[in-house]
């Protein structure tokens, strides 16, 4: 077991170093002098030269890379060119709406998709099964900005049930802030529930075909208990996997959803950084998000390892 844990840990470190490398290479793929590009067309050559020295862009590439990785591992992701503040502190300021949005929409998605997925598998081939599978696919096909814009227009602007956009202003208390996240969370939750529904349904179908379910039925156990005691208990594990899987989907969706509802989160930050060519912020966000993804996947694998005694590595 110790060997497996060690191997997983080393694998994770390697992947994170690779993530750093990709982020480093990406920014250097940009054509032209990055300093001139960052400063815009009005910059004088002297200003560009000054910025190049400040960013260490005149150093040999290997040295730049070593400094970059060293700093990143120490938690220093550079400084934003627009805000003139450390990238990590900007990201920390913008983290709250994104984290709450991700958690609330995940909760919402699990809340609608898991029971429907389980029931659809149980009533396999029924009208409910077919329609839930079809609507899941439809939900995954509609661009999330369209869902968001329709909801925003109908439920917020026309009916006034929810705040239209924003995060309640700088002094809003936590309930007002969370209230502003309900509609965005539903929007994002609907898109993500599609994957969860399909996944839950498929794994429940597997479980219902298992021998122990047949045995339980054969010995005359009431159907309710077969489902609740035997099947549901084992359906928990795939749900852990799906949480790991949807993370990337949640972040991608959050970028668009934050834009629709004008939430001051990390997604909005990164889009603005792209429009302003604020490379350190783009780089920093990529690194943080990818590292969280790697950690979540390591965590789901470890939970698997400890819960499911059959999993052997």
């Amino acid at each position, binding site marked *: 077991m110790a060997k497996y844990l060690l191997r997983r840990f080393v694998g994770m470190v390697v992947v994170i170093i690779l993530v750093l490398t990709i982020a480093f290479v990406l920014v250097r*793929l940009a054509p032209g002098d990055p300093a001139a590009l960052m400063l815009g067309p009005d910059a004088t050559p002297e200003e560009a030269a000054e910025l190049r020295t400040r960013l260490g862009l005149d150093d040999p590439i290997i040295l730049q890379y070593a400094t970059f990785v060293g700093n990143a591992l120490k938690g220093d992701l550079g400084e934003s060119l627009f805000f003139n503040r450390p990238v990590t502190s900007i990201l920390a300021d913008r983290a709250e709406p994104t984290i709450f949005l991700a958690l609330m929409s995940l909760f919402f998605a699990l809340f609608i998709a898991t029971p429907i997925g389980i029931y659809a598998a149980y009533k396999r081939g029924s009208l409910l099964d077919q329609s839930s599978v079809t609507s899941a696919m439809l939900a995954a096909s509609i*661009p999330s900005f369209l869902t968001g814009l329709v909801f925003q227009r109908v439920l917020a602007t026309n009916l006034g049930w929810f705040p239209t956009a924003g995060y309640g202003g700088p002094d809003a208390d936590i309930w007002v802030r969370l209230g502003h996240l309900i509609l965005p969370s539903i929007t994002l939750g609907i898109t993500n529930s599609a994957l969860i529904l399909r996944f839950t349904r*498929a794994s429940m179908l597997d479980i219902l075909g298992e021998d122990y379910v047949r045995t339980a039925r054969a010995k005359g156990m009431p159907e309710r208990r077969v489902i609740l005691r035997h099947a549901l208990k084992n359906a928990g594990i795939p749900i852990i996997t799906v949480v790991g899987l949807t993370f990337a989907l949640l972040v991608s969706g959050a970028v668009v959803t934050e834009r629709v509802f004008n939430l001051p989160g990390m997604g909005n930050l990164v*889009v603005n950084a792209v429009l302003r060519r604020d490379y350190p912020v783009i780089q920093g966000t*990529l690194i943080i998000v*990818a590292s969280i993804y790697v950690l979540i996947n390591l965590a789901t694998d470890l939970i698997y390892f400890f819960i499911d005694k059959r999993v052997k590595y």
Partner: protein
Amino acid sequence: MATVSQTHQPPGFRDVLFARRSTVVALVCFVVIVLACYVLPTLDLTAIGKMSVRNRLTPPGADYFLGADAFGRDVLGRLLVAGQTSLQIGLGVAILSSSAGIVIGLVAGFFRRLDTPLSRLIDAMMAFPDILLALSLVAIFGGTVGNVILALSIVYTPRVARIVRASTLVVRELPYVEAARALGSSTLTIMVTHVLRNILSPILVQATFIFAYAMLAEAGLTFLGVGVDPSTPTWGTMVNEGRQYIDNAFFLILFPGVAIALSVLSLQLVGDGLRDALDPKLNKET
């Protein structure tokens, strides 16, 4: 179907593919969308690109079937022309990422020494959420149709590579590959004629899904203002343009949005049908 059951043959690829009504409907729907986008504009039924400021933001009706945009241009006509670009982006990404994924996956599956580094690289690439990575790539390359195709292909290549590698690892151990090796076939011949030809089905299924995802991603990127340049009509740029008039002309967003959703949905249904038809083992999922 009837003849098949009479002769007691296992159902063929086409029988399984067309057995499900949703796959047939989806395939027909997608073909209709493609034909409409490429054929209708050549018939010049709609006044594409003709501006008439007097008719700006006309709601859908007799004059303009799907309304007119902020410049008084016919939305239906623009939708069809924009569809060509959107479909090209989807197809381009599907072809490019499949080709790159096949090469990387085959190499990783065949050369044990390269397997670990390539697999870790694939893991690292897949740690970046698709929109986020595509966003950064387009920011670096610049927002043209070609660059969006390139950026999205980089995003989706690892997904194909992972599937190709996994299938290669299975197929390369099969007896007929061993036989080919014993007969003195070169590694390249084995890779292409014996392995690649036998793992084409999962690649085709994945390519169909990537076609769909790429169309969604293009729309998402353009909506964020970092995708295709606004002067090129795509379904994404149409939505983005329409955003300014959301309060008095919601149809400007709705129609391109529905066009995207319909294409993506039909592609995904076709992908599902293909998967079931090509891999009988997965049939239990339906």
